[in-house]
């Protein structure tokens, strides 16, 4: 392994490790704190109840969104595809807006909200992708498919805005705060279903990795290789909906990670095949989310920023830098 390959292979791991340790053990007001994991009784409550689930959810949300983005870019054959652009996140947001804002305040109950938000998020995301698939079947054409996703995105975002206008101040606050994606809201008990779900989705994509590679040259090529393209397309939609929808439901909308992480992996890894891209894509997804979480908590003393905004602020320059440095246009 020459030094360049070594750098490319290990740099993301080192960055991930550094960010993970920083996010988990550092706070601006009290500095570094390393709990004794061998004596669980000594671990302070704030660490187990707040810090740990926050950091763990940032890692898994990053992995889920980035893998979702990777397969959606293959599905739509478009480098701009990601959970946001293809309508999954707006679909999940709209379904959650319907739940939080559409139900009158008088009969709304937090239990209904807690149970419903997750289900609504996933259902909204998957439903939007299934609608797109239906339109794709009727009209065909991959650009129709992408354009449908964009239009659904606009339509559903407008729907969410109208619901906000009609809702009470309390309901609007609850939705606005949900819409400011962050990982602070995640509780340990929620990770009990979130982590297995994300691992299940990633494992499923892993099993499909060679089929996805065979699909890259086109439908004909995949069919000649014995792959049922409609079935594969349906599976991808389902998995991408589960991954991005459940993450959106749990952490709120986190944009840009699903778009940027696969590109970072492709450019830095100099590869386009799924079986080689999956791991670095997840790594970059986790790195982006951890970096955004650290900045959201430590950029300003005591004030916690919106992770969704930070993701775009750090992600866009990174992608631009990598693009320019690698002369991506010539690759």
């Amino acid at each position, binding site marked *: 392994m020459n030094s360049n390959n070594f750098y490319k292979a290990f740099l993301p791991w080192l960055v991930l490790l550094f960010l993970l340790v920083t996010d988990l053990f550092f*706070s601006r*007001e*009290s500095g570094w704190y390393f709990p004794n994991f061998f004596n669980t009784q000594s671990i302070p*409550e*704030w660490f187990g*109840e*707040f*810090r740990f689930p*926050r950091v763990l959810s940032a890692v898994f949300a990053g992995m889920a969104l980035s893998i979702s983005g990777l397969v959606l870019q293959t599905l739509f054959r478009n480098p701009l595809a990601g959970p946001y652009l293809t309508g999954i996140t707006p679909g999940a947001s709209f379904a959650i807006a319907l739940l939080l804002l559409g139900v009158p*305040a*008088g009969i709304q*109950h*937090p*239990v209904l*909200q*807690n149970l419903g938000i997750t289900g609504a998020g996933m259902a909204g995301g998957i439903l939007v992708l299934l609608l797109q698939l239906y339109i794709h079947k009727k009209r065909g054409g991959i650009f129709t498919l992408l354009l449908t996703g964009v239009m659904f995105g606009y339509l559903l975002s407008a729907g969410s805005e109208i619901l906000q*206008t*009609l809702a*009470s*101040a*309390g309901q*609007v*606050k*609850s939705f606005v*705060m*949900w819409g*400011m994606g*962050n*990982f*602070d*809201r*995640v*509780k340990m*008990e929620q990770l009990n279903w979130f982590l297995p779900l994300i691992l299940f989705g990633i494992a499923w994509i892993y099993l499909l990795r060679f089929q996805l590679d065979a699909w890259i040259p086109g439908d004909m090529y995949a069919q000649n290789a014995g792959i049922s393209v409609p079935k594969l397309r349906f599976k991808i939609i389902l998995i991408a909906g589960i991954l991005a929808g459940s993450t959106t439901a749990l952490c*709120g909308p986190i944009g840009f990670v699903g778009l940027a992480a696969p590109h970072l992996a492709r450019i830095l890894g100099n590869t386009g095949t799924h079986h080689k891209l999956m791991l670095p894509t997840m790594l970059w997804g986790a790195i982006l989310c951890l970096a955004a979480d650290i900045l959201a*908590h430590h950029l300003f003393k*005591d*004030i*916690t*920023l919106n992770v969704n905004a930070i993701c775009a602020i750090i992600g866009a320059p990174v992608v631009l830098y990598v693009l320019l440095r690698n002369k991506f246009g010539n690759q």
Partner: protein
Amino acid sequence: MFELAFTQTDTFIKLRDPADSTRILGAFFWGTGKEKKQGFVRLKNRNKVVALSAVFVGMMEALKSENRIIAVDNSGYITSKRTNTRIAEGKVISVAASGNLQSEKIFKLQPDLILGYFIDAKGKSELDQLNSKGIPVLYIQNFLENHPLGRAEWICLFGALCGHWEMAQAQFREIEEHYLSTAIRASEVKWKPSVLCNAPFSGIWDVPSGESFMAKLIEDAGGAYVFTQYRGAGRIPMDIEKVYKTGSNAIFWLNPGPCRDTTCLEQIDSRLKNFKAFNTGNIYNSTRMQNKNGANAWWEYGVLRPDLALLDIFTILHPEVANEHELVFFEKLN
């Protein structure tokens, strides 16, 4: 922050921005004097008023001038019977029920003046547009006053506007005396219990700063607000971990979001069970006068009657010292 001046024939008001007292937000006068006054806009009439905050409605009701109100921001947030009757009769309408100001609706009403406020430049420009169309806008930025009495003092401005200057002054003097006497009683109590405020939404906790309205009320009621070291009168969006580290041992917890029982609080975030006040049951919310539609008299009268708000909090924090006082705005969470 406002200035009032009287001559034999006219009344003059100058409105300043409490956040920057050098910034004049408007200067108006009215009366029988015929000549123009340099730098002041004449208010021809003061009978048809658009009140864009429930606080303004509360102040006008206190001065028995609610019949001047022809529109409010959102009639759903009004709790007073007298104004609600006028709303039911169609004499008062909503002009910002969705949160967006309906300028055309206001313009068609042709009010004599608008009592408004702004939080950002966009909000001000919307009202400025109406001002430029000949409808005077009085910017009542009393929510930026740090001291609860500073906010209540604005009733004097309403008194001048509604022709009840003396009544307003008498009311304010009474409120001030009552407030200060409670504050003196509270200052004599040695034990200052720690107090936490508000509740998180989606992991973020809007914490009132150390110079805010609530922080000052807690301090004057003989409490020790846990975030008193943070300067400023606004709110700080803080993550739940930081609030837990600083405030989980607070003895009292006030205004925990929309909750009226601990089950609601637990369902907002189950980790709130780890807060001491949750387990001791020392959580109070200013929802006693909230009706089933969510309208809460706290917003209408809490600002006008800081003396009652202070007495409520003093009674909550020091029941052993406070005389028999039935809580007006606050109630204990079930």
